[in-house]
């Protein structure tokens, strides 16, 4: 090789140019080195550029996107420049009495599910799912979260409840994770009637899989929040890969007299979409905690519930609500009779774009005019190889960019916002915007014609494009991410940021906070 060539004793006088073979050999080696560099340098550079810093603020993430509206700049809340913005922890209710007062104690432990199996995970007040919280619309809820011994800390996020930002429960964004021995008090008014759930948003993927969640039901004003047999919460969850409903390892039996009408609040606490169906006719009363107008009976079709999403199904006893492997069994045909066997899943799926009473989306029906948006954002989900935090992989992209170089959707309070969510990544993504409900305008360019379809968790399959709209009416710093909780770790997370809002909290390896 080169060195031996140079060391050749018979190479002529010391200062003479080396003979042609040596030059050729040298040139070839040089070309090989340059070619290797050309191949490897971009890879090494993009790896080095992706190395995470030990602590970061969400306000510094990505690049501002003002959606074509009046330009807005993120408030980085620089040290020593106090008073430049409203910190998220001032965006809370003033202190006062609460109508519903709950203490939840989080533990890492092994627990026995109703119906037999023992699972290792997390509990709230000794059970998983945690206790159901029920409130009447308009009541103030106070929840004291105590961490007994969950090593990495916990938080509680109120999924679907548009609470003040300071109570949103995202570690490193709206609060610090509650470490063992610590506590955090959440306070908010339950203004929306419907089905919701709460779950940890610290190391969320692991903690939600492990059972750190529970049901949250708000009943309409003038009704009673006392649990009744005609109102059933069906939190569907896979523990160690086996499906359970409401913490029962098997079917959930609901006593009901023949002919009685029962509301089953199907809540998907897992990381991928699931379906619910019944051999008997049923109605989809509500989606994501918002009532459907004029729900019609459904026969021979399943209802898709995306990860994090809810669908309230109304059945008449006796009936089985199938959830795929487990069911809610409402009443029994005859006492002592053999139970009805599971019904196979129907192929058709209820299309919520056209379900319910046809309603034009106007200021009268949805409270704002979605045809005159202040800002229009794109949230285009793709996929490409690259590095995130120094680890190579095939990662999700947002508008073509890899995390953390993702858009920061900038809004001003009162803006009407349209967002086009599209997916060409090859996999379904359950997209969840915190703190807001959006109304679906169209799918793949086909306008919505049914009841206004309000969502907080939207199933966006590969190849689909959704147009949604919402009013920016809840100032803060809000996550807008995929609720397949493994995906935010792989870069599928962006934020909605209000002008002038900042946060004192930070996340990253040097902090206890890891929201994903």
């Amino acid at each position, binding site marked *: 090789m080169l060195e031996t060539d140079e060391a*050749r004793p018979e190479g002529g006088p010391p200062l003479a140019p080396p003979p*042609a073979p040596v030059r050729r*050999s040298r040139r070839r*080696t040089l070309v090989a080195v340059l070619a290797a560099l050309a*191949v490897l340098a971009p890879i090494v550079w993009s790896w080095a550029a992706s190395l995470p810093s030990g602590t970061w603020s969400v306000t510094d993430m990505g690049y501002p996107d003002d959606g074509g509206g009046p330009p807005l700049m993120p408030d980085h809340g620089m040290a020593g420049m106090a008073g430049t913005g409203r910190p998220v922890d001032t965006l809370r209710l003033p202190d006062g009495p609460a109508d519903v007062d709950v203490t939840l104690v989080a533990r890492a432990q092994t627990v026995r599910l109703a119906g037999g199996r023992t699972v290792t995970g997390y509990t709230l007040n000794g059970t998983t799912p945690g206790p159901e919280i029920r409130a009447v619309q308009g009541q103030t809820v106070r929840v004291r979260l105590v961490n007994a011994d969950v090593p990495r800390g916990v938080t509680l996020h109120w999924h679907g409840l548009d609470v003040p930002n300071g109570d949103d429960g995202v570690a490193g964004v709206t609060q610090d994770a509650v470490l063992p021995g610590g506590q955090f008090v959440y306070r908010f008014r339950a203004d929306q009637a419907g089905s919701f759930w709460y779950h940890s948003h610290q190391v969320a993927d692991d903690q939600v899989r492990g059972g750190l969640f529970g049901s949250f039901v708000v009943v309409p004003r003038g009704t009673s929040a006392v649990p009744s047999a005609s109102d059933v919460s069906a939190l*569907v969850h*896979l523990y160690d890969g086996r499906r359970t409903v409401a913490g029962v390892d098997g079917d959930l039996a609901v006593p009901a007299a023949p002919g009685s009408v029962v509301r089953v609040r199907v809540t998907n606490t*897992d990381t991928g979409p*699931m379906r619910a169906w019944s051999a008997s006719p049923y109605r989809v009363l509500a989606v994501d905690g918002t009532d459907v107008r004029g729900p019609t009976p459904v026969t021979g079709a399943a209802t898709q519930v995306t990860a994090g999403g809810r669908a309230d199904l109304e059945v008449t006893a006796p009936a089985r609500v199938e959830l795929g492997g487990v069911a809610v069994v409402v009443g029994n045909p005859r006492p002592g009779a053999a139970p009805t066997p599971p019904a196979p899943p129907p192929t058709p799926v209820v299309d919520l774009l056209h379900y319910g009473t046809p309603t034009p989306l106007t200021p009268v029906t949805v409270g704002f005019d979605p045809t005159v948006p202040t800002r229009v954002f794109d949230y285009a989900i793709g996929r490409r190889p690259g590095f995130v935090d120094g680890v190579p992989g*095939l990662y999700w992209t947002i508008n073509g960019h890899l995390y953390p170089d993702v858009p920061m959707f900038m809004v001003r309070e009162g803006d009407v916002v349209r967002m086009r969510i599209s997916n060409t990544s090859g996999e379904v993504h359950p997209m969840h915007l915190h703190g807001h409900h959006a109304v679906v305008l169209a799918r793949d360019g086909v306008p919505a014609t049914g009841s206004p379809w309000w969502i907080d968790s939207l199933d966006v399959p590969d190849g689909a494009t959704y147009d949604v709209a919402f009013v920016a009416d809840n100032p803060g710093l809000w996550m807008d991410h995929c609720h397949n909780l493994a995906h935010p770790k792989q870069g599928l997370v962006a934020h909605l940021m209000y002008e002038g809002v900042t946060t004192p909290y930070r996340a990253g390896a040097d902090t206890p906070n890891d929201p994903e």
Partner: protein
Amino acid sequence: MRATYRVLAYLLALEVVVQAAAIAWAVFGLSTWIENGGVLDKAQMESDGTAFDGVLGFAVHGLNGQMIVPVIGLLLFVVSFFARFPGAVAWAGAAFAAVIVQVALGIFAHSVPSLGILHGVVALVLLVVALVAARKSSGAPSAMDDEPATGAHAAKV
């Protein structure tokens, strides 16, 4: 460098075999699991807890195919610049190109399942290309390793 080239090329061929074995194991395991009452939907697919004989095959196929195989292909390509024998760069380049196409097919077949047919075909193309590359590198030592066999400087120096 020729020895390294040869090892990487055979490794790449071996990886194709591993990929085929892993996915076959997984598919049979999955169908058996469903026969015995397992219910597969997206939520189940995304849960870490799905457990049956063969589920590891999916993980191996995905991780191996998206990470290890591309790394081997890339290393083979880089090493080919230094492995001086006729066709070294061309065969390594072809193998690397086949790897890229194969990974892309593996990704896009999730949107267009019929691309899976090509995914199966390109696997065999990659196997053959990798084997040819390995054989080429282990043929009679070529004069290229030192100097071209023809021309004014054909004489060994």
